C-alpha cells in the first residue's frame, strides 16, 4: 500500500486541495488578516458566488471560471457597500468587536435566506468540459475538476501578493494594517484604503465560489462547513500574510490528503486542526505572521 506512486498521488491530491483552500481563504486574509475585520460572512459570499455561477452556467452555458471573474466586478462594489455600512455603524463608533461580529453573522444568515428563496434548497451543480475528466503525468493522476481550482487559487494568491507588495495601493493596505495613524499622517485616507481592500476581499470570495461549485454540489447552507477551515488557513499562515495563506492552505490540504490516504479519512479534520493548534502553541503569530 505504501508505494511511491501512492505517496506521490496523495501529495498531489493534497496540493490541489490546498490550492482550492487558498482561493477560499485569500479574501479573508485581506479582511481579517490585514484589516482586522472579522468577516464571518466570508463563506456566505463564497456561496453567493457559487449560485451566481450556477445561474449563468445553467441558463447561458457560461464557463464557471469566466462567470466567477465577471461577477467579481459587481461583487467588489457590494464589498465596498458592506464595508461602508460596517464602518459607519460599528467601526467608527468603536463598537466593532462584538456588534460588528453580530453584523457579519446576520449578514451570513441573510445571504443564506436570500439563496434559499431565490434558488430553492435543492443541490446545484455546474457543467464544464473539464469536469469529470482527468489526465496522468507519469504515475500521477490529476483530475481537472481539482486542478482548475488549484490553478486559479494559486494565480489569485500570487496576484494578491504582487498587488500588496509591488503596487502603491497594495503597500498602502499593508501600511494601514501596520499603523493606520502613520498612513493618515502621510496624507492617505485609511478608510478609503480599507474600503477598497474589503471590496477586493469580497470579489475574491465570489471567484472562490465559482471554484467551489466546480468541485462539488452546493446547497444554501454549505457555507457553514467552510467557516472553520478558512479561518484556520488564515490563522495558520499568519495574519496579514498572503504567502502565509497560500502555504497554510497547502499544509492543511496535504495534511488532509495524507491522513485520508494512510490513516483513514475520519482523522483528516482532527489532524488539520491539530496542526493549527501546535503551530499556534509554538508560533502564536502563525507561520508568516509578524
Amino acid at each position, binding site marked *: *500500500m505504501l*508505494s511511491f506512486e*501512492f505517496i506521490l*498521488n*496523495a501529495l498531489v*491530491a*493534497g496540493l*490541489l*486541495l490546498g490550492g*482550492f483552500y487558498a482561493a477560499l481563504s485569500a479574501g479573508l486574509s485581506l479582511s481579517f488578516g490585514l484589516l482586522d475585520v472579522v468577516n464571518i460572512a466570508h463563506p456566505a459570499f463564497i456561496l453567493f458566488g457559487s449560485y451566481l455561477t450556477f445561474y449563468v452556467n445553467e441558463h447561458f452555458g457560461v464557463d464557471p471560471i469566466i462567470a466567477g471573474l465577471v461577477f467579481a466586478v459587481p461583487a467588489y462594489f457590494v464589498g465596498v457597500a458592506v464595508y461602508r455600512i460596517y464602518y459607519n455603524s460599528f467601526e467608527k463608533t468603536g463598537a466593532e468587536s462584538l456588534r460588528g461580529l453580530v453584523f457579519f453573522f446576520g449578514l451570513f444568515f441573510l445571504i*443564506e435566506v436570500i439563496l*434559499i428563496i431565490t*434558488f*430553492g*434548497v*435543492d*443541490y*446545484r*451543480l455546474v*457543467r464544464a468540459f473539464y*469536469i*469529470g*475528466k*482527468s489526465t496522468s503525468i507519469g504515475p500521477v*493522476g490529476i*483530475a481537472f*475538476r*481539482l486542478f482548475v481550482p488549484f490553478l486559479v487559487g494559486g494565480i489569485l494568491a500570487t496576484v494578491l501578493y504582487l498587488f500588496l507588495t509591488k503596487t502603491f495601493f497594495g503597500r498602502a493596505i499593508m501600511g494601514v494594517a501596520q499603523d493606520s495613524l502613520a498612513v493618515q499622517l502621510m496624507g492617505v485616507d485609511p478608510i478609503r484604503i480599507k474600503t477598497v481592500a474589503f471590496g477586493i476581499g469580497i470579489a475574491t470570495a465570489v471567484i472562490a465560489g465559482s471554484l467551489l461549485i466546480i*468541485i*462539488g*454540489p452546493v*446547497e*444554501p*447552507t*454549505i457555507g*457553514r*462547513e467552510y467557516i472553520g*477551515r478558512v479561518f484556520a488557513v488564515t490563522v495558520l499562515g499568519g495574519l496579514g500574510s498572503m504567502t502565509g495563506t497560500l502555504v497554510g492552505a497547502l499544509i492543511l490540504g496535504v495534511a*488532509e*490528503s*495524507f491522513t*485520508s*490516504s*494512510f490513516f*483513514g*479519512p*475520519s482523522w*483528516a*479534520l482532527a489532524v488539520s486542526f491539530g496542526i493549527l493548534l501546535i503551530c499556534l502553541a509554538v508560533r502564536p503569530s502563525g507561520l508568516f505572521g509578524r
Partner: protein
Amino acid sequence: MGRIIRHVILGFALLLAVSIAFTPAAQAAKEVKIGFSMALTGPLGPAGKAALLAMEIWRDDVNAKGGLLGRKVKLVYYDDQTKPANVPGIYAKLLDVDKVDFIVSGYGTNLIVPALPIAMERGMVFMGLFGLDANAKFKYNNYFQIMPAGPDPIVDWSVGFFELAAKQKPRPKTIALLSADSEFARNAVNGARRNAKKYGFKVVYDQRYPFPGTSDFTPILRAVKAANPDLFYVGSYPGGSVGIVKAAHEIGLEPKLFGGGMVGLQYTAIQMNLGKLLNGITNYWFWAPEKTLKFPGIEAFLAKYQKEAPKQKLDPLGYYLPPFAYAYVQVLGQAIEATKSFDQAKIGAYIRNNTHSTVVGNVKFGKNGEWATSRTFQVQLQDITSNKMSEFSKEGKMVVLYPEEFKSGNLIYPYAKGK
C-alpha cells in the same frame, strides 16, 4: 312591549351563536392537526421540502373528500434545519402550544430519534419518515416507519447488494466499505459489514469520512483502489455521493460491483449533472418508473407533484422520497377512518395489525414498527446516454434487480462493463 324585548334578546342570542360558530377558534376545533418537524433547510432540506409538498398533496386529497371523520386536515410544521438539537423543542411546542392531534416525524434517522422519546412519553402514534432502525433501542410499539428497509433494517437495507454479488461467477471475494460519519450512513455500513461476514466477503478497507467537511474524495478512493476490492459498498449523503462518483471515474476505480447505500443518486438534479457517470452503479432505490412498480395511485400522485415541484424549485421528478412522504400520512389517515376514532391506542393497534394499501404498494408493519418484510430495491443505472431530465423518467434506465418479485431487468456485471 315585553314581546318586542323578548324578540330583540332572541335575535341577539342567535346572532351571538352564529358568530361564535364561525369564529376561527370554532373552525380550528373542527380541524385535525398533524404536527411535525421537517428539514426545510440544511443538508436534508431539498428532500425535506419535497416531502412537505407530498404531504400537502395528501392533505388536499383528503380534504377534497371531506377530511378525516368529517374534520379537515391541517398540517402544522416547523423547520428543524436538519439539526437534531432543534427537534425536541419543536415537538414540545407542537404538543403543548399548538395542541396538535397527531404527530409524525421529520425526514431522516437523525431527526426521528430525538422526537421518539417525546412520542413515547405522550403515548402517541408516531409515523416515521425514512428512519434506519431508529426504534431499535426504544422498542416503542406505536412507532411505524415507512421506508421499506425491513424487520432488521440495518442488515436488510443492504442485503440485496450482497445477494446480487453472491450470485456472480466467479464469486467476488473482497469488499471495501466507506461511510459518511453520521448516524444513517454508519448504520447502513454496519449492516453491510454484517452482511459481508454472512456472505463470506473479506473486508479489505473499512473507513468513515467526516460529514460534513470532506471536500475531495480522491485520496480516499485512491486508498480504496490500493486495497483492490471486488466490491465497493458506500454509505454517503448527496454531496459526498457526487464527489465519490466523480472521483471514482477520475482515478479509474473499477470494482466489480459499486454503490450500495449512496443517498442523492436518486435526486433528479444530481442525476442530470452526473449523466453517463451513473451507468453501471448498483444502488438502493425506492421507486423508479419501471413496469413492475406501478402501484395504485402512484402515477396520479406523481402527476400532481410534478406539476407543483418546478414552481417550488424542488426535485422535478420526485421519485425518491415524495411517494413515501405521501404514504406515511396516508397510512395514518386510513387508520383514523377505519377505526372511526382519534384514539391513539386504537389507531396504533389498527396500523400494527393490518396491511395498508398505499401509493408505494401494500405496507405491513412488523418488529419495531419497520416493514414486516424488506422491500429495498437494488437498482442498476443502465444505458444513460445524456444529461436530460427525460432520460431519467424513462423505463429501462433504473433497472430493478432485487427483490426478484419486482425485477425488471438483468445486472450488467462487472461494473466496468456497465459504465
